[in-house]
């Protein structure tokens, strides 16, 4: 039986538990039980030992798992006859697949003796590797324990070490966001550059016409292939604005009601119920918007003598607003609830009504959190696709009339990316450029928002 990764991890876990125990005991032993003489609590010495036991071994384990395939493959391929050695990398890749499939007992086509033999070798190396890994992991773990054990003296700052490890973890986690950003920029930058070689940047940034109807085949003519992003951004703005007009009052008022007025039972169930709104798949909202709300608006509009398109920004925006209610309501409810009771008491004692207290004391105190939740809701609105596709259509009208059909940046990105396309045509590349510009625009907006929030914070903290 070759040891499975799960088995190795379990062993490592057991070892770390042991390390914790040993470290703790050792710490107690060096001060003969007088914990006060230790720099840190015994459990920190335990944790320190456990870290030393687990981290190096884990690193080796991960490295092995990443490179195992490559290593073994390299060895096995080296043993193949010359005819195989000459194959192109792509073909070799297939040979490897064949070998691996054979290892797993799956044979495509007629079994080839060379492959079968290679598979046998592959199997051997694999099990050898696994056993070696167990040995190395156990050895490293043990060495780690030993090292940590030797370090334990009363003055040893185990807490600081463990906390430094924890801080390192915290810092690492906070950089995930940076790497994500870099990743996103990198994954759209190349194509965007390509796009800008085909479509001038100024045309893209300031063009008032969006109609990516370039030719699909060489024998077609690009119809009015124009790539002006302004209508898309205006559409995004319009739809998001409508969504926020729905979501912010509904969400904020709900949150205030739940946090300040509602009997506990209502609050207990009301809040999670609202949160369900955030989890309903957007397809459902899309159908709701397109088949229920849009016709409703249309008939209402017609009754009023208004010209209403069958797909309207209003329908999409309103339904999107409903979807993002919980972003505002739940997060705001939490921050409102966290305002200390003494603040409320101070206001009530002056003869303020609940609503006055809410508006003038609680809201300002909770403002940073509420702004955060609203920003999040805006973000969600900007990023939403399905509802707009289904209810607002795809026509890039440059309009601020909510009864007209519009389209948004996100929708265009999605349709361009998933539609039929030629990957180096400006049509497809436009999706990347749109992504990049959207990213930049929201970045600018966020910087402004941060400044504004800061200003308020300075005033109220």
């Amino acid at each position, binding site marked *: 039986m070759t040891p499975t990764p799960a088995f190795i991890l379990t062993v490592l876990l057991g070892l770390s538990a042991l390390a914790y125990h040993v470290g703790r005991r050792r710490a107690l032993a060096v001060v003969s039980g007088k914990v006060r003489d230790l720099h840190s609590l015994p459990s920190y010495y335990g944790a320190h030992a456990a870290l030393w036991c687990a981290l190096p071994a884990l690193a080796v384990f991960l490295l092995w798992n990443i490179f195992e395939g490559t290593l073994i493959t390299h060895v096995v391929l080296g043993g193949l006859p010359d005819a195989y050695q000459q194959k192109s990398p792509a073909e070799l890749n297939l040979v490897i697949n064949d070998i691996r499939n054979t290892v797993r007992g799956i044979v495509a086509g007629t079994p080839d003796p060379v492959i079968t033999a290679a598979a046998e070798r592959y199997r051997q190396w694999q099990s050898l590797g696994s056993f070696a890994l167990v040995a190395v992991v156990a050895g490293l773990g043990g060495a780690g324990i030993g090292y940590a054990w030797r370090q334990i003296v009363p003055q040893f700052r185990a807490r600081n070490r463990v906390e430094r490890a924890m801080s390192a973890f915290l810092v690492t986690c906070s950089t995930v966001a940076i790497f994500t950003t870099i990743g996103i920029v990198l994954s759209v930058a190349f194509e965007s550059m390509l796009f800008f070689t085909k479509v001038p940047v100024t045309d893209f940034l300031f063009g008032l016409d969006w109609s990516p109807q370039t030719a699909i085949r060489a024998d077609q003519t690009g119809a009015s292939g124009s790539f002006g992003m302004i209508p898309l951004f205006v559409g995004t703005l319009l739809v998001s604005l409508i969504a926020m007009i729905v979501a912010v009052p509904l969400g904020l008022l709900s949150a205030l009601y739940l946090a300040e007025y509602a009997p506990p039972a209502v609050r207990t169930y009301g809040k999670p119920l609202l949160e369900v709104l955030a989890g309903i798949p957007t397809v459902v909202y899309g159908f709701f918007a397109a088949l229920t709300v849009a016709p409703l608006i249309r008939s209402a509009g017609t009754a009023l003598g208004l010209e209403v398109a069958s797909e309207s920004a209003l329908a999409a925006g309103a339904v999107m607003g409903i979807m993002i209610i919980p972003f505002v309501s739940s997060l705001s409810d939490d921050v409102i609830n966290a305002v200390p009771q003494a*603040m409320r008491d101070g206001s*009530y004692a002056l*003869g303020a*009504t609940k609503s006055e207290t809410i508006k003038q004391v609680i809201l300002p105190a909770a403002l940073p959190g509420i702004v955060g939740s609203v920003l999040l809701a805006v973000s969600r609105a900007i990023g939403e696709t399905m509802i707009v596709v289904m209810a607002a259509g795809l026509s890039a009208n440059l309009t601020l009339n909510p009864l007209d059909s519009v389209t948004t940046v996100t929708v265009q990105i999605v349709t361009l990316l998933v539609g039929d396309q030629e990957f180096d045509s400006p049509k497809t590349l436009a999706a990347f450029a749109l992504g990049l510009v959207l990213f930049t625009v929201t970045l600018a907006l966020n910087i402004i928002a941060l400044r504004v929030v800061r200003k308020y914070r300075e*005033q109220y903290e």
Partner: protein
Amino acid sequence: MNTAIAQQRAIHQEPVMAAHPQDLAFNATEPAPEGHRTVGLVTVDNPKMSARDVNVHYGDKHAIKHVTIDIGTNEVIAFIGPSGCGKSTFLRCLNRMNDTIDGCRVSGEITLDGHDIYARDLDVVQLRARVGMVFQKPNPFPKSIFDNVAYGPRIHGMVSSKSELEDLVQWALEKAGLWNEVKDRLHQPGTGLSGGQQQRLCIARAISVSPEVILMDEPCSALDPIATAKIEELIDELRANFSIVIVTHSMQQAARVSQRTAYFHLGDLIEVGETEQIFTNPVHKLTEGYITGRFG
């Protein structure tokens, strides 16, 4: 001592016993079924507020037991008693601030100008506008110093112009003895003040709306003697128009500012009387023990 008030109370000069209102009415001498019988000047002639058989429970804890007491018009009454005896709790009953505490139940009757403040149709917002409060722990709003004081007048529409508001804020801050220290930083946050400054800010905030009754829970605990003197002066001045209840641990202070003093002990109101009498000649031995620095 204010002689007018002393005269008003002449008919009550003899200490009376009171526990339940019915006891008062029917047989004042029979022991109450439970709870302590309060000794002394429980009632006054022209009460601004009166409490009858008030009980407060925090969950199971019986924090205030059958308390009956009047708060006179234009009088300063001091509540004294060991820490944890229920002074703050009782104070909070008087403007229904206890409503905001989960699990706190109040029974009995409390009236303001003869109207039951626990009546169903009573507007508690108005009640609190009329019965103001300074809390034990200073709790300035996370707003600027100016806005902290201006808050009350604004919501009650007491001022019609900005300059009027500024005058009012200045007046309140001056009365609380804080003006000089903050006049240059009116628009900085009230939470950035020192402990004693915050306490005075809260006093300024409370008097800014000129409530009819002011409940002060240890208003001078964080103040130096000079600031304390200033506040005491303020209290004396306010008494001309308002009624004031002050919780204090300093018997000297009680003696300086109050006309009557009430002594609480473990949730019981033990004794009420003219301040001078309480401090010089307490009737109940628990009171005496407290006054003289040891427990009964």
